[in-house]
């Protein structure tokens, strides 16, 4: 049951991973002082973004068994649309936020209806290539509309950094934390309290059985893609004021988000959150300690190691192989 909570308390691997992680964090702060704290705080900000993107991957994967290579492009589009609405058209921040998320969610839904719907039952390679095609398409369209330079989005409130124990933190970071918590909470409520959400969990666990009791797999897939696109867009929007988006920023965001999802356990929402935050923090510590050029390689190293050693991630259960 991919979307269901596993028995947290019994997962020894998770606890040991968390313990090591905590140790690394404590060591970093005690060895590097306020600089270390700075790394960890910025790591948490980026990590929240990775979590949101990872949740998008997981929602789509658990409902349709598809890895959406265009997930990062949803974030890029979210940021770019926010720029158009808020910076260019001077629409108020919250209205721009909602509009951008809605537009990207609609794009996700449209893609599901036109391509993914037609590809039910196709081989994995086929679906991968189609989502890659879609990501290239979105990127190219963005380049056409917004050009190649990164665009500037104003922070939601104020630009003056706040200092905590000599570590500076921009106010936008609090928006990132707050909105991520809100999104995670909303998603949990959706999957545990609403009929549609429960149906999606059922379909994720066993789509044949779910369709026998009246859960439409078509609807499930559509909702999953819409949700994932919206989540991705939200991530791209709230990080926009900190790292200005450009037409090409989607690829990295998507790959990092995917690494986070795999680290936590692909298809597992809690795993996405844990994986995202861990990856964000560790990556920033690495960037502080090693030459910066290698920072980008860290997430991929984690991705490959997890895939090889424990493909189900920290929180996942091994997948049954159907013949």
């Amino acid at each position, binding site marked *: 049951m991919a979307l269901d909570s596993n028995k947290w308390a019994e997962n020894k691997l998770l606890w040991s991973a968390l313990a090591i992680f905590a140790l690394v964090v404590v060591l970093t702060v005690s060895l590097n002082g306020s600089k270390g704290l700075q790394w960890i705080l910025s790591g948490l900000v980026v990590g929240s973004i990775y979590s949101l993107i990872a949740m998008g991957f997981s929602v789509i994967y658990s409902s349709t068994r598809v890895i959406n290579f265009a997930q990062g492009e949803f974030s890029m589009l979210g940021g770019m649309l926010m720029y158009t609405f808020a910076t260019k058209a001077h629409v108020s921040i919250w209205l721009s936020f909602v509009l951008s998320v809605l537009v990207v969610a609609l794009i996700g839904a449209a893609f599901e209806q036109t*391509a993914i719907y037609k*590809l039910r039952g*196709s081989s994995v390679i086929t679906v991968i290539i189609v989502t890659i*095609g879609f*990501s290239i398409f979105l990127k190219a369209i963005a380049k056409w509309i917004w050009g190649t330079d990164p665009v500037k989005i104003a922070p939601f409130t104020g630009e003056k950094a706040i200092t905590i124990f000599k570590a500076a933190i921009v106010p936008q970071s609090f928006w990132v934390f707050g909105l991520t918590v809100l999104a995670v909470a909303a998603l949990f409520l959706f999957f545990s309290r609403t009929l549609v959400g429960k149906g999606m969990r059922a379909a994720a666990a066993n789509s044949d059985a779910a369709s026998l009791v009246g859960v439409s797999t078509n609807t499930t897939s559509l909702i999953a893609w819409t949700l994932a696109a919206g989540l991705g867009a939200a991530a791209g929007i709230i990080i926009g004021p900190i790292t200005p988006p450009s037409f090409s920023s989607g690829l990295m965001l998507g*790959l990092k988000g995917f690494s986070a999802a*795999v680290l936590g356990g692909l298809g597992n929402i809690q795993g996405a959150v844990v994986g995202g935050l861990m990856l964000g923090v560790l990556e920033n510590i690495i960037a502080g300690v090693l030459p910066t050029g290698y920072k980008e390689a860290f997430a*991929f190293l984690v991705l490959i190691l997890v895939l*090889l050693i424990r493909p189900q991630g920290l929180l996942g259960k091994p997948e049954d192989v159907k*013949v």
Partner: protein
Amino acid sequence: MERYLKPAGNKRDYRVLLIVSLVILTVPLWARLIPGEVLHMDIVNIMVLTGIYACAVLGLNLLVGYAGQISLGHAAFFGIGAYTTAILTTRLHWFPSWLGILLAMVVAGVIGYLVGVPVLRLKGNYLAMATLGLGAIASILFSQVKWLTNGNEGIMGIRYLSIFGFKFDSDIKFYFAVWVLVLLIMLFSINTVRSRVGRALRALHSSEVAADAMGVNTGSVKTRVFVLSAALAGLGGALFAHYEQFVSPESFVFSISILFITMVVVGGMGNIWGGLVGVLFLSFLPPVIQALPQWIPGIPSSVTNFSNYELVLYGLLLIVFMIFMPRGIAYGLARGAQMASRGAKHVGERLQARKYEEHK
């Protein structure tokens, strides 16, 4: 219908290969005869690059199309090949370039083996992501390991390919070197696909468990085809380095891996001609579109400025081909040729029937 199209390949493939070889090897003869005002593109130059990419794409077609194992990181092996020969021949002045190319294949193959053994245990989505991650790490290493690769500035002044004193120092000479190799790879692919290994690959593609049960050593077969495709990509990369005389990390990024996959898909996965058709189609698409206004006056410049919508087009091609034409252009061509021959036969029969009636 299936008789002609079955992926096993048949005797006809050799005949087609003979004709294709004759056409391709005579291209420089007639391409230079057509005046530039008519053609508006340097066919020989485009064909050299096409051949270089073809090395990588033909190998990838065996891996993706036949064995059903996806790789989204083959630009890494292309790059490893290019850097191997680039570093060897620029640092050691006596180092023969043909040996550089051979070693490039070996290095790419060995790295392919070291990477392939663990990674090929993964399947489908996971394999795609792992190879993508490896490709990303490789392109970071190309630009970061500066003492070896000279970072983003790249390596300049790579010598032309020469074998025992014969220098391939013009486009035409290089053309023959590259395409003879490509045609040999093509012959090798046709033979492989018809062999026991080829049948094992296809069994693997349809069901790994079933192939295992039938006695195919799936792990070993997968690794071997992965190493082969890595070495061929390395060969392509090495030829690229000696042709361009310059390598930099830009030439081996993620989008090149995607270009390779696109060529395989558009040409036709699991069709022995797919790789060749795909690489020809996508290499000639940009220059043909750019040359359009010279042929047909009145085409707006927004259409001809290919870099504007190159990526939009590639994205759409991938989606449209996978949904509506998953077997690619090569299949379409084969089917067209077959329908034409059947049509001709049909017309012939009708004519004969009419003659018979008239005679009566």
